[in-house]
């Protein structure tokens, strides 16, 4: 039975630059009791869509209908909508820290929600809140009732959010990226909890995620969105194992967890269209490997006999574009051919910050590590494990409390000013946040030209030529020399950061979560670029990430960090096959499993033009009745 039926939903958001057509003509049905996943990259409109269903997007103009238990949510007045929110539809948001009020205790916040909708006494509400906290397995719930959100860990906070969303036994729970801000081991626990609570409370869950791997784990059915449109919808096994839309297929091909390590990812070329002026035809056409001339017209909705619905002109299965060809690897660069095989040696490194009260906080503890010339060494761990600090210590940006870091035979702490500066040419860092690592007030040309300026290597026209060559190399248009960083997308910005890092032909590049902030299809582009540069320039990489699947894909060896220590270090393959430490095992268990690709066994039932009312043109008359009301 349908619980939520969204038909022809359109959401426009007026902004200073023009109207953003965030959601364009999206229809879907959520059945009672199911786990419905919505997947899409940033800007696909998935978040805007569910939030506007709940009336939470200020200034949004909506049309279409959202039928929930016989009422059109878009037409409800404020008072009626208010009684739906929280009581009949509970919501869980991405970042549990910022989503809970910092100045009230978690117990107070749950009680508030209960008493907003039900006339019960404070004591009864409190008893129910404690019971809820127990059910989401907050240890010592009665005592934690009076704790503030900042006194909980990330995962515990999300449990509180879940308890709050469940407090009135809503029929529907909308979870908007509920695990994105969490560490992968915690992610898995929260997903399991969500699924368990769904069964226990008999609720229906709509979950939004950018992560195919996460949805593959829990969703019964998924809807794939792109550029504000619905691309594909169906049983998750069907959609994810044998995608019918080229975009879904492309997403799967560019997901690191879904590709054999060592094989290049197949990125989706280009980037999403602007939602200010979306194309009138298929939004994906410009990036689609199967694009045809007819794709400039709005695609029909095709239904298959397994329930999959696809908005695409393609009749067969999406094609498999060839993997990008990688250049042959060159020998690792070295100024001194007699140098030994390791470029960096870290010996019993320790880093502790003194605290005003109590003992110093130890960030790095007794770390011994060696980076071999020409390899990619992965550094994996959860947030706060010290992996970034270790990278900074290796780069010489923070001084260790004890122990040594030796780069190519020179101990960093003994270097003079001049040597330190020359070291800066040989070790480079690519930062995690492509928005934060580029100065917003400077032009791209001057940012990429910085290494030349700082080391006095090239100036004027010569520097400009060097910069433009670099831009070409990393796949940026050299004509964009005079633009500001804000005029580039996240992926392009990361390319700028990479261009800056390789400008002086360094030997070691430290990559600090270089793709974590990027969408999957863009991640693949950047990962391939890094691979290509490593081969042609003979670079050594130290690759830091919290994402095991990405690390496994690109690294030769992997070091696992926990609590400031390296607990396991091994060849990537061996570490995967035979992890030694319990923490590594947990990490591996939490990582997204590969989605098996199965050949499609489906038949086209019916194709309809999306906007047209009345009976749609029927292609296969004998199956039409069956397909019309699934």
């Amino acid at each position, binding site marked *: 039975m349908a619980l939520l039926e969204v038909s022809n939903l359109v959401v426009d958001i007026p902004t200073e630059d023009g109207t953003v057509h965030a959601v364009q003509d999206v229809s879907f049905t959520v059945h009672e009791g199911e786990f419905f996943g919505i997947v899409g990259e940033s800007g696909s409109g998935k978040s805007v869509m569910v939030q506007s269903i709940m009336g939470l997007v*200020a200034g949004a103009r909506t049309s279409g209908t959202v039928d929930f238990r016989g009422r059109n949510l878009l037409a409800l007045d404020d008072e009626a909508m208010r009684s739906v929110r929280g009581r009949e539809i509970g919501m869980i948001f991405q970042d549990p820290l910022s989503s809970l009020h910092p100045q009230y205790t978690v117990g107070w916040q749950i009680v508030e929600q209960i008493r907003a909708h039900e006339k019960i006494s404070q004591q009864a509400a409190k008893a129910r809140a404690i019971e809820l906290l127990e059910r989401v397995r907050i240890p010592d719930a009665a005592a934690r009732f009076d704790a503030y959100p900042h006194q909980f860990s990330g995962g515990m906070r999300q449990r509180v959010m879940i308890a709050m969303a469940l407090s009135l036994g809503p029929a529907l729970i909308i979870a908007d990226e509920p695990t994105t801000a969490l560490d992968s081991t915690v992610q898995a626990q929260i997903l399991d909890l969500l699924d368990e609570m769904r069964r226990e409370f008999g609720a229906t869950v709509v979950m939004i995620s950018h992560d195919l791997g996460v949805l593959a784990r829990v969703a019964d059915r998924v809807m794939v969105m792109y550029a504000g449109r619905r691309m594909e919808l169906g049983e998750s096994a069907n959609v994810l194992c044998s995608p019918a839309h080229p975009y879904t297929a492309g997403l799967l091909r560019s997901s690191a967890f879904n590709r054999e390590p060592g094989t290049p990812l197949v990125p989706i070329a280009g980037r999403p269209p602007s939602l200010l002026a979306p194309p009138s035809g298929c939004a994906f056409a410009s990036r689609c490997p199967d694009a045809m001339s007819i794709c400039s017209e709005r695609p029909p909705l095709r239904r298959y006999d397994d329930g999959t619905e696809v908005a695409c002109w393609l009749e067969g299965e999406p094609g498999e574009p060839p993997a990008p060809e990688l250049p042959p690897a060159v020998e690792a660069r070295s100024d001194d051919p007699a140098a030994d095989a390791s470029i960096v040696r870290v010996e019993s490194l320790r880093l502790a910050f003194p605290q005003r009260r109590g003992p110093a906080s130890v960030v790095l503890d007794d770390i011994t590590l060696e980076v071999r010339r020409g390899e990619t060494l992965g550094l994996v761990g959860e947030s706060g494990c010290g992996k970034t600090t270790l990278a900074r210590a290796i780069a010489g940006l923070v001084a260790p409390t004890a122990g040594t870091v030796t780069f190519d035979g020179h101990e960093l702490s003994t270097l003079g000013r001049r040597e330190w500066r020359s070291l800066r040419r040989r070790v480079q860092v690519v930062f995690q946040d492509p928005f934060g690592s580029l100065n917003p007030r400077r032009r791209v040309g001057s940012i990429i030209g910085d290494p030349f300026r700082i080391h006095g290597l090239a100036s004027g026209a010569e520097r400009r030529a060097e910069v433009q060559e670099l831009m070409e190399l990393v796949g940026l248009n050299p004509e964009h020399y005079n633009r500001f960083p804000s005029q580039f997308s996240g992926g392009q910005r990361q390319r700028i950061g990479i261009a800056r890092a390789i400008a002086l032909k360094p030997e070691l590049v430290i990559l600090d979560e270089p793709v974590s902030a990027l969408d999957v299809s863009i991640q693949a582009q950047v990962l391939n670029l890094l691979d290509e540069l490593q081969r042609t320039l003979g670079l050594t990489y130290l690759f830091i990430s919290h994402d095991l699947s990405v690390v496994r894909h690109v690294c030769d060896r992997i070091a696992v960090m926990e609590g400031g220590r390296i607990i396991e270090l091994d060849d990537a393959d061996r570490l995967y096959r035979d992890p030694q430490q319990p923490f590594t095992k947990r990490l591996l268990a939490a990582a997204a499993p590969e989605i098996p690709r199965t050949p499609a066994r489906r038949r086209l039932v019916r194709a309809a033009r999306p906007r047209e009312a009345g009976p749609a043109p029927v292609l296969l008359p004998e199956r039409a009745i069956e397909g019309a009301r699934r």
Partner: protein
Amino acid sequence: MSLSTSKPPAPRLATPKTAAIAARNAADVQLRGSWSLTFARLRRDPASIGSIAVILLIVAFAIGAPLVAAWTGHGPTEQFRDTGLSPSGIPVGPSAEFLLGADQLGRDVLVRLAYGAQVSLLVGVVASIAASMIGVVVGVVAGFFGGPVDTVLSRITDLVMSVPFLLCAIALVAVLGPSLPLSIAVIVFFSWTGLARVIRGQVMALRHREFVEAARSLGASRTSIMFRDILPNLVVPIIVYTTLMIPSAIVFEATLSFLGLGIVPPTPSWGNMLADAANGSLYLIAWWMVVVPGGALLALTLAFNLLGDGLRDALDPAASKGGKGA
């Protein structure tokens, strides 16, 4: 309550926080220079255009003060006791002879207004620029170097902020004798603190941004980081804050003059024109003596405040609208 030590940043969220921001991010950013964009936004704001016009008008009026004096034939301190005062000694109102009326000594209010504008503008602009320079230097040094340097400078800033400034100002002026340079010095001394705090906060935040770390990892020197990486990001608050400091400096000067502690009479300033009006509640019968300088003062401060707001909106649209996501 220890301030945070450098904590390794958590993985960035792959999706922006609010739906509206997501929508905005998804919208393609067009190629536009930041300055031309600013001017385009300013031009669309009638309040900013109007206030620029008012400011230019008053500036022209101040520069043209000698012309006004020559045109009316009245000097700024010249007393016309026979034409400007009624037989019973009451100043005459606006008339053909005295367009904006006369004051208690029979001086032309229009001419004095023009010369007074010079004082107001001079004090306002000079004091704010000087104060903002001090504020920027203190803020940047404190924020960039941190540690004991920061502690000392912040304490000094707090100290100046905890002083009952008007009381101290009048004590100071009373002892040292009123003069224009002293007025400016007093205003500067009590005005730089706000900007210093703002800039310090900004620099502290910028210092931990990744692009500064990137510059450091490239081997950039401290000076290079300070001038090339940090300072360009401070241009907006400096411009806005300095603009908004001008009207408060103008009012500060007028207040000092009003209390008889600013510009020495008979030199006209808007503050002592108002003091003349208040003296013996003369303005109750000679309303133009308060309406003219008071109105001019209000117009000028209002124009600068509006311009400051307009500049902030134009230079940094996201900040003024808040993150109005939901």
